[in-house]
């Protein structure tokens, strides 16, 4: 007992980087010049679990040094008064924000469209937009309102993209084994032909309050992460097409893209690695060549 107390005191006295090292289990290669980011979804509850996930993210940032976070929607639940922006975003992630980590948000069905005007979400006032990091181009879509204008913009932007990796993210999942919402079949009908045609590599969505990695469909990798604040325990109704599912705690993801590989690690609020691995940059048989 006395030994345990001494151990805790010593651990507390460690400098922050050593403390982070002791509390984290990084399974990414951390290669030089790689693109590293974190993923959160359905985070904005302002409740204790969201704060705990945020603290865990900060511990990992000290080791992984991810540069930005992608937000998969439902960034702010409930009211949208100024205090909600603080309690459900600025306060939980203050350590990351203070460290210069940027957040790139997409809108969920609980978000007020005016969140696009909130500068820390880096949406530039737009419902849908793109941004580049190294070899990667991110396509941030508004799956709440997939009107003809957006569909046409997606096609033109994908066609113009010259990035090696193209990653799309939006709130509603195209594939899901969740009982609460399930897949958005109509959205799937509209988006997957474009993703196949223009060679999208990976897709991230939220909405279902679980973590799920789906078997690749037409060589595209699909991830669902909707449990960074909300949680729907025991939500899976089947495991058809599922490679990994987790629905008993909140969590977040870390992603590193280096050369031809995308590495991922999904970590629970309590600090357990619940999924990890890597995928190869895939060639798409039906994809058209992009404009050089």
């Amino acid at each position, binding site marked *: 007992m006395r030994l345990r107390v001494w151990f805790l005191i010593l651990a507390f006295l460690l400098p922050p980087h050593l403390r982070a090292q002791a509390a984290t289990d990084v399974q990414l290669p951390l290669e030089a010049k790689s693109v590293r980011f974190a993923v959160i979804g359905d985070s904005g509850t302002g409740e204790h679990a969201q704060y705990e996930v945020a603290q865990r993210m900060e511990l990992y940032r000290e080791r992984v040094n991810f540069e930005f976070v992608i937000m998969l929607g439902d960034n702010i639940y409930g009211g949208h008064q100024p205090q909600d922006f603080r309690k459900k975003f600025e306060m939980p992630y203050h350590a990351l924000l203070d460290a210069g980590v940027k957040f790139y948000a997409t809108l969920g069905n609980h978000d007020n469209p005016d969140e696009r005007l909130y500068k820390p979400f880096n949406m530039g006032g737009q419902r849908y937009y793109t941004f580049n990091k190294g070899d990667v181009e991110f396509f941030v879509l508004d799956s709440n309102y997939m009107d003809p204008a957006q569909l046409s913009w997606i096609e033109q932007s994908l066609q113009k993209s010259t990035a090696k990796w193209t990653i799309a993210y939006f709130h*509603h999942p195209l594939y899901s084994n969740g009982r609460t919402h399930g897949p*958005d*079949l109509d*959205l799937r009908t509209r988006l997957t032909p474009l993703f196949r045609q223009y060679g999208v590599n990976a897709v991230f969505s939220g909405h279902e309050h679980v973590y799920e990695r789906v078997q690749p469909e037409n060589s595209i990798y699909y991830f669902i992460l909707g449990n960074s604040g909300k949680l729907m325990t025991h939500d899976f109704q089947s495991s058809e097409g599922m490679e990994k599912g987790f629905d008993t705690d909140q969590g977040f993801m870390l992603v590193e893209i280096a050369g031809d590989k995308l590495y991922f690690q999904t970590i629970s609020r309590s600090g357990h690695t619940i999924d990890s691995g890597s995928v190869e940059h895939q060639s798409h048989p039906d994809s058209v060549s992009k404009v050089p």
Partner: protein
Amino acid sequence: MNRRLPARWKSLQRVNCRCVFRVAAATLVVLAGVWSAAGRGSGDQDHATVNDFESRVARYLELRKKEAGSSPRPTNSPEKIVDSQQDLATKIKALRPDAKQGDIFTPEIADYFRHQISATLAGHDGHKIRASLRHAEPVHALPLQVNQVYPKGIPLQSPPATLLLNLPNLPKELEYRIVGHNLVLHDIAPNIVVDFVVNAIPSKKE
């Protein structure tokens, strides 16, 4: 006598056949004309209805932009976002104090929307659209009123992509939303209900 009868019968049959063919051909021509005219008439009418809808939307937006202003620029301050939204909503309400349901969705326009939606739901992708509507978080029991602020705590449900492809396009400042079985025209920046169509989304058995 007996020998003449077949010849007359043959002649009568030839005459009858010619008549039947002529009448049938004439009937077909008339029917085709009527069908074509009806089709054109309906197409023209739809075109006129959509034009009417688009001009009403354009007039609303022109008034809103001229008198109340546009969306604010991105800012770090949540206070500015919330204040400018409330300010814009207050100005629009003051501009249209007598606005009522049906000002934009007139009965003819509302019927057009109901027809477009039910035809799309009855079509090839209807089951997928219905599945998407079910899998969203359907909003019920929200009493609608023109000029009201859309409650912020309530999730938003919008028409799925295939449905949007079959409705008139809107300027980027406006969007369609679904509340229960009603289709709402929503002004994004002030977050207000501009107008709505009651019972636009038919239930499955209809």
